[in-house]
Each structure stands twice: as C-alpha cells, then as structure tokens.
C-alpha cells in the first residue's frame, strides 16, 4: 500500500488549497515544497531588513469566497479592503480615483467628462452582469469537448442564473464583447482618456498584450469576475502580506491533517505501468502515493517532473505552444516617507494612496508601452501598477517607513539587447523616472530597491518566462483550452497524475480555484 493517498508537488497557494480540501476529506496528504517557505509566488519575504514584502503576488489577490469559507480561513487571516479601487494620477497634475462606490466614482469622472460620468453606472451594470456569467465558469470543471457528458451539462446549470440575470437581449453583447479589444469596448462607452486608461489598464495587467489586442475585453471581464470589488480589479491587502495568506492556507491544510515539507525538491514523478505511483526527490528519497498532483506550471510538469516522451506528439506540441510570455518586472522600494503625488498636493493623501495606484493615463499610453515588447525592448514610458501596503498594514515596515511595490510593464522575458542582468537597473531607473513625473519627491525617499525581472521570477519562483499565471490568461487559453484541451479537467494522460496550479482553469490570481477544482476531481476519481 502506498504511503500517502496524494502527494502534491509544490506548496503554492493552489497546492495548499488542494491539500487542505483533500485532507479535509480524510485523505492522507503530503505536500513537498522545493523552497524553504510555503507560498510559491504568494509569499512575503524580508527583502530589506525589517520590511516584509509580497515579492510576486500582491494586494489581497482574488481569493474565492467559497474557498475562504470552506477552508475556514477567516479565522486565520485578515484582509484589509480599500475603498479606492484605483488611484490614477494624470500627467497634467490632476487625478482620477475609482472608488468602490459607483456614485462617488461618477462624480470623479464628471471632472473629466459629463457624458462619461453618465455612462459609468450603466457600464458597471452591464459588465457586472457579463462578469457573473464568466465568473460562473470559474468554479466549473471544463467540459470534455466535444464528448460532452450529462454531468457536464448539469454542471453548466450553474450558469443559468447568471445568464438569466444578464437577460436574453444582452447575450449578443456578451458574445460580442468577449473577443473584443478592451480599447474598442471602452471607446464605445467613454470619451476621456483618463477614464479609459483607469479601467482598461486592468485588462492587460497580467498579460503580454496591449489594450488594442483582440480578447483583452475578456481579460478585463475575467479580472472583474473574480475581483470581489464588483469592479475590474481587487483592492486591498492581506494583513501580514501575501505570505500570511498562504501561511494560513498551510495552517488550514495541516489542521486537516496534511503533512507539508519544505526544502524538499521533487526531481521526478515515478511512473510505473503508465500510472503515477509516487515521487523521487533530488536527495534520492522516494515516496509512494495513489495519486500525484503537480502545482507546477504545465511545461515543468510535463517536461521535467514527467518525461515528454510519455505523451502523444500533438500533446507535446500543444504544451510547447502554451503561451507563457511574462512581461512585467516587480520592483520593490523601501521608502523613508510617502511619495508626494502632485495631484494630491495640499490634502491628506493617505486615503487615495492606500489602494492600487495606476500610472496608465490613457489606453494609447499603455498600448505604446506594450509595443516595445514586440521588438524585444522594455517600455521607455512604462505602465505602472503600484501598491503601498504599509498604509493598510504598518506592521510590514519599520515605524514611519513604507514599502512601494511596483508591477512595471512592459519588460519582455527576452531582451533584444541581451541579458537582463545588464539592463535591469536601467529599467528600474526608467520606472523611477516615470514615477517622478507624478511624485517628484520619489528619488529622495527611496532607501533601498530590489528589482525582479521576468528571468528572475523564473529562476527564483519557478514561473517560466516570468509569467506569474503559469501561462497567459487569454481567451484562447481559458476554460476547456487551459492549459491544453486534453488536460483541462485537471487529469493528465498519465493515470493518477493531476495538475492543480495556475496553469489549469481558471488560471492565476491567487484565487485558489484551480486548487479547489482539482481537489474536487481527485476526490471524484478516488471514491
């Protein structure tokens, strides 16, 4: 008899969610994590002494309410929501703030365009309805197309409510909007650049496309569906940083009886008679299990943990063709004081600065920033997504000091000019120069900085090509096509081998849903 019912490779948040669910259901679970800490890309690290920094995933993520409830996480971790969904300083010294409250936001928008202010509530209503439909797909196991089963049809029933609320007349809107460029969608509703930029930037925050590319309206909706704010992005921080969330997940999993080992690097999955029977660690140690689950990305799972020659040619080719394409750098700054944004001069800035801050004054700006990546260059005028988590959770930094974490786009994985190591500081300079145009004191308050380029994210956090989502979360890599059609149901061609990471449906974003869905399928198979 195998030592464990299930071995999970990788203690990223999805691996931990799967572990928690399986242990909760009474399975004997072992989680093996290569690094010395759990969390994967959802970690808090003391990059600068005294500063606890959410190195990769940030904010409060998009953790599913269902997962939070079922794993009883509220008792273990606290999130601090922010009223501000996006603070958007403009080049002319003005600013637009998107609040959770629609009316309050409409008043802000009116300073830029009266027409846009009138459109905004209608836009939010339509997008929320459509996002509900998209959201309904998230917790579903994608159907086995084209051999759709009765069970798949019944699962689809979860969509009936959202579709009814959307209304028959607006189904064509849904079908039209999904493959659209977000820029086209926003141009239909809004005339002010600031408004379009504020909303549309989120459509490309996590992918390597510009807002003028087809399918970015879908990515906006996908973000909308999981945000928890009722708007296009999540807003808030986890108290103690992202690591506190994954720490809580680990505690929950352990509480249900799962065993978690860090510093345990799995070198391969043992396959006997076409069945996964256990794992071998790089130390040579072996463990057996009835099922093995990989929290790693698909390419690592199928090429490294398993062997590519286990699989059909088409399968391998499809895995090879998964678009990863990371294009964001993470830059962390230690600050001796808050940055002073010109747009907030003379008032109390802390309210606006405690949520996400976006440097994306127009969609053209973002598109131009993206264009560089096509030629293997980093953006000279980057689109920046900033967070000062210390305003919501001062415990993250020494008293009076702050953390400013930046997602800086675009920084393509492969630079035409050569190795990133020779260019990462100059890109960081570009980022800080850009920031200085909005917050001129920034250079004076930086006490330390840490730059993670896509290759750094790959080597340090196991994110191939630096893509935080184990593969682009674009429309053609969504649902039954994620990561590839033949393993979109968390199972793989190797019996007893599963995937549970962000590479699986519905993707990344610290939702915990891939892990939740994978656990459900594993339990179905092991009944």
């Amino acid at each position, binding site marked *: 008899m195998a030592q464990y019912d299930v071995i999970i490779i990788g203690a990223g948040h999805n691996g931990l969610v799967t572990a928690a669910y399986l242990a909760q259901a009474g399975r004997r679970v072992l989680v093996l994590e290569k690094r010395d800490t759990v969390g994967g890309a959802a970690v808090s690290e003391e990059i600068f002494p005294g500063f606890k920094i959410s190195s990769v995933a940030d904010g409060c993520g998009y953790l599913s309410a269902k997962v939070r409830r079922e794993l009883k996480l509220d008792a273990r971790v606290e999130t601090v929501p922010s009223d501000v969904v996006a603070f958007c300083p403009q080049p002319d010294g003005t600013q637009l703030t998107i609040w959770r409250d629609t009316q309050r936001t409409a008043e802000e928008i009116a300073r830029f365009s009266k027409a846009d202010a009138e459109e905004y509530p209608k836009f939010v209503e339509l997008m929320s309805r459509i996002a509900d439909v998209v959201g309904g797909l998230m917790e579903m196991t994608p159907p086995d197309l084209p051999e759709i089963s009765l069970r798949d049809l019944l699962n689809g029933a979860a969509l009936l409510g959202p579709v009814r609320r959307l209304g028959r007349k607006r189904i064509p809107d849904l079908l039209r909007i999904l493959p659209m460029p977000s820029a086209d969608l926003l141009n239909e509703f809004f005339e002010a650049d600031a408004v379009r930029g504020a909303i549309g930037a989120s459509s490309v925050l996590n992918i390597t496309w510009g807002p003028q590319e087809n399918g970015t309206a879908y990515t906006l909706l996908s973000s909308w569906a999981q945000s928890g704010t009722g708007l296009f992005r999540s807003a808030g921080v986890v108290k103690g940083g992202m690591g506190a969330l994954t720490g809580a997940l680990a505690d929950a999993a352990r509480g249900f009886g799962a065993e978690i080992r860090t510093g345990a690097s799995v070198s391969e999955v043992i396959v006997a008679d076409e069945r996964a029977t256990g794992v071998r660690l790089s130390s040579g140690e072996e463990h057996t299990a009835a099922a093995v689950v990989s929290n790693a990305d698909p390419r690592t799972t199928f090429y490294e943990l398993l062997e*590519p020659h286990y699989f*059909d*040619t088409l399968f391998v080719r499809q895995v090879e063709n998964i678009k990863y394409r990371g294009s964001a750098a993470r830059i962390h700054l230690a600050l001796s004081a808050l940055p002073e944004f010109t747009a907030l001069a003379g008032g109390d800035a802390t309210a606006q600065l405690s949520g996400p801050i976006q440097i994306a004054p127009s969609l053209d700006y973002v598109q131009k920033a993206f264009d560089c990546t096509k030629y293997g260059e980093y953006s000279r005028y980057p689109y920046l997504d900033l967070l000062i988590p210390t305003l919501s959770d001062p415990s993250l930094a020494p008293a009076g000091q702050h953390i400013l974490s930046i997602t800086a786009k675009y920084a393509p994985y492969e630079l035409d000019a050569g190795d990133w190591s020779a260019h990462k500081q100059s890109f960081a300079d570009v980022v800080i120069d850009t920031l200085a145009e909005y917050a001129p004191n920034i250079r004076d308050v930086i006490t330390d900085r840490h730059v993670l380029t896509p290759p750094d994210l790959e080597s340090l956090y196991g994110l191939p090509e630096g893509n935080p989502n184990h593969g682009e979360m674009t429309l053609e890599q969504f649902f039954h096509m994620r990561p590839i059609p033949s393993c979109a149901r968390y199972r793989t061609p190797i019996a007893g081998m599963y995937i549970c990471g962000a590479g699986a449906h519905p993707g990344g974003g610290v939702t915990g849903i891939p892990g939740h869905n994978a656990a459900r399928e594993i339990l179905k198979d092991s009944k």
Partner: protein
Amino acid sequence: MLKPTPFHSRTGPLCQGHSWANWAGFLAATTYEPDHLHEYNAVRTGSGLFDVSPLFKYDIRGRDALATVNRVAVRDLSKSRIGQVYYSVWCDDKGMVIDDGTISQLGEDHFRITAAIPTLAWLQDNAIGLEVTIEDVSEQFAGVALQGPTSRDMLQSLTDVDLSSLRFFRCTDGKVAGAPALISRTGYTGDLGYEIFVGPDDAESLWDAMMEAGGKFQMLPAGLATLDLVRIEGGLLGIDADFTSALQTMFPVQKLSVYDLGLGWMIKANKSFFVGRDALRREKASGSRYDTVGLELDVTVLEKVYAEYGMPLHLPYTSWNSAVPVFSDEPQKHHIGRGTSGMWSPVLKKYIVMARVKPEYAKLGNLIWIEDVVESHSYSIPARVVKMPFYDPPWKKA
C-alpha cells in the same frame, strides 16, 4: 528545377534514354538502358548499383537520442547496440503510418534515420523537451545501394572490412575504394546487398571504382524501374504506391495504420510509450480495417481472356502502382480491398500483387478475385493469398 545527385557526372552519360524521374527533388534514372530488363536481371543474378543519394537522412545525437528514436519508431529499439539497424515505420498519434525507413545506431548517443519524405519537423516535434540535436544530413552523404547475389564479393574487393562478419541489418564504418564510408547491410531489393554512404566529394571516385570492379561481378547500374520490381518481389512497401503518408493524405479514410499495412509484427506488447501506441492497442483489441497480403494471379484465366480477343497473353513487365479493386466472390463482386502494386516477376515466373484486404480474407491460400482490364473490358481474375516476401533467396540473410 531538379537537382543532380553527387553521382550525376557519372550517371548522366550512362542514362541512355534520358529517362529521369523526380526522387525527392533529385534527378534519378528510371532506367539506364532503354529497357530495364538487363538491370533487373543483374540485380537477381549479379548485382545492381543504385544511386540512393536522394534518401532523406537525419542524425539524432545527444543524451536522449535513444529516447527520441524509440518514441518515434514503432519498433522497440531499447536493446539497440552500436552498429545495429532497424527497419521500422513511424506513425501519428492515431497509429496511422507516416513513413518507413531504417534507423541505424552509429554511436552511444547517435542514431541516423533514413526516410522517404521530409521528416525533420516530425522529429523535432517529437524531441520537444528531450536533450537531443536533430540534423538534416541528407546532402552530407552520397549513397549507393549495391544489391544482388554477387554484391558481397564485389564490395569485398573494394574494402578491408571483413564483410563475412557484417550480418544482415548491421552497419559499420570502413573505407570503400579508399574513401571513408558507412557500410550498411540493408537495401530495398529483398536480396543480399549493401548501402554505402560517403561524403559527396568521394562520390565520383566511389562510382568509378564500383563500375571498374563491377565487370567481374555481372554488375550494372540500375534505375528506379528495376528498384520498384525488386522491392515488390521482396515484399517491401512503397510510399505513394502501397500507402500514403498520414501527413500527406487529403482525407482521414486514406490514412492506414500499422496493422492495416501488415506490420503488426513490429509492435512489441511491452514496449514503453511510442507515438501511436495507445491507438494501436485499441485497434488491436477492436480489429483493423485491413491487412496487407501478397496475391498470386491465375494467369491461365487471364490468358483465356486475352484469347477471347484473339490476343496473346499480356503481362505487366514493369510494375503498376494503382488502386485495383479486389472482390471476395464472383460474379457478385463484393468489394474487400485493393491491389496496390503488381508485376510479372521474371525470376518467379508469376504475376504477383501486393494487396490490402479486409482481415477476414487475408488467410494464406484464400481464393479472391482481382480486377483486370482487357481491351477496356473489366474482368475478375482469380488469385490466391500467398506468403510475402514473394522472393526470399537464402543468401539474403546468409
């Protein structure tokens, strides 16, 4: 524009009728003399010298070279040793045959695959994630096939390699006529024979040495017309004759599985994963559409048909490669398959046909009917299912 092979300066003047064919983009002689018969007889009684340079050749090197070829090939190469050559087909994920060729192990982590159609992309696709390099070496080597009962003695006169110890489907490095060469005891004739590959710069001197030595061994240069005859006698499949590559068919119905082509013997039940394995397992359990068999036609019936028109018996002295209907009975004519290649075999004195029929009709000795057209009238000629290869001389493997 067709390209000359490295032997062209020699084969060109020899090709009396300028009867060139297109073989993979190269000029290849159909016959050297106006008629192929001397060349055919040379292969069966002396030796034939074929220019086989147009074959596609790929080198697979690296730590995962064996894993790569064993993933691609239907046959199990896991016990391959240096100097061993395998004949294998490879197929797609659904077990449908893409091509056939030889796979030679040239070094610890070095294999060479020969193929009839361009195969680089397929090999690269199957090497994704594996530690190998794949190189198209097709034009780095000029190749001749020296085939026939005198080929060993003749080649021995040109090399120090002890050919008596080079067994069937083995290969070795050695010098031939002073040039470094790969000598492979393989061929496409069903006879004793060798394939010799040298660098293009040594091609002309190799050809000259062969022609000079050949006189004593009843050797003649031979072209594709002969090659197609002797490969049918040898029971060897021809691409675009007996099957179409699964990568090149227009419709799924035209794809043929390993079993359809009568090559089920290549599949070892306990072989680790190879491309198409799972589909072939399912096919084995549920049954195949076809089997491939040899047919021997009753020429006395054919003779009577010709007699009805006051004509003497006419036989296919060159091979035909077309889909000819095969029936289970007469006169109802229930269609059960097709003949794919046929010929009058001078050495066997028999009209032989390679055919693809429903498996239940594939039993040896079974009587079936095959269509022949005489004076534009269609007739069914009785034929027996016979063993392949049709021609299998004892010296082939000796």
